[in-house]
């Protein structure tokens, strides 16, 4: 009887050790990555230039791939990824929609003038609520939406060469 208890405790003991040992290697910061494809939930926002209210249903109306990119002029990584966005636009395979996150209108316009404007439509997100509807938590963040209006890819952080190629593979 006693030996059996001891045995059980020893097994538990090593189980605990292994789990904690593995747990040490996991990062302890949570990143809300896309677990599986999901439907794009409807969101409302006002237009960057005209300030008129529109809804996601009106904007994503074509049978097309869409890329929703959250950006801000004060965000440095956004500048890094901007060239890739322009290149993507030049492919003419995907429509780019920008969401201007917690930004100043003047600075944002200056940013577009300097770096070019890859977006076919820009929405304003003054208080950060629009991006939360999408499931983003910072800038830059990018969502790829397929023809069935499903989010198939979520990119947290700037787009780099590798991710750019991945996107090309998806939309071709």
């Amino acid at each position: 009887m006693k030996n059996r208890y001891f045995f059980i405790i020893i097994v538990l003991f090593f189980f605990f050790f292994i789990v904690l040992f593995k747990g040490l290697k996991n990062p302890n910061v949570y990143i809300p990555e896309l677990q599986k494809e999901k439907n794009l939930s409807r969101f409302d926002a006002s237009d960057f230039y005209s300030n008129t209210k529109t809804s996601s249903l009106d904007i994503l109306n074509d049978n097309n791939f869409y890329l929703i990119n959250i950006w801000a002029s004060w965000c440095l990584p956004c500048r890094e990824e901007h060239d890739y966005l322009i290149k993507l636009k030049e492919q003419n395979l995907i429509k780019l929609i920008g969401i201007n996150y917690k930004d100043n209108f003047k600075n944002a316009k200056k940013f577009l003038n300097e770096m070019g404007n890859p977006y076919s439509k820009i929405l304003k997100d003054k208080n950060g609520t629009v991006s939360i509807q999408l499931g983003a938590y910072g800038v830059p963040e990018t969502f790829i939406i397929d023809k069935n209006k499903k989010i198939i890819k979520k990119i947290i952080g700037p787009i780099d060469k590798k991710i750019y190629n991945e996107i090309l593979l998806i939309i071709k």
Partner: protein
Amino acid sequence: MKIIKFLPIIFLYFSLFSSFSNEKNSQLENKIFKNLRCIICQGQSIYDSQSDFAESMKLVVKQKLDSGMSEEEIYIFFKDQYGEWISYDPEFNAKTYFLWGLPVLIFLLGGAIILRKLAVLKN
């Protein structure tokens, strides 16, 4: 004395039904704030966090409440967007049977051991 034994059961029973009390909107808001975890300051609820992101999340909660969504629906919305991690109140499902069940199991087991010990000592 007998009633004491049944108290936990009675309270469990009532605590299930007690959540239906009518709370004022701001109290409900705060309750939801306290149950949602901030992604920027990951150790805090959005109620306690002072980060920009938490402020935006609070706004979204308010908008959702105004648009007539219930507390439960708001949690579901956020879990859908950001994963189950966002809620401080773990669901009761296959993943969390042990989380919810193990303490109660330990309680029952402990009770059995103590009762046996008492019985042994009494004789």
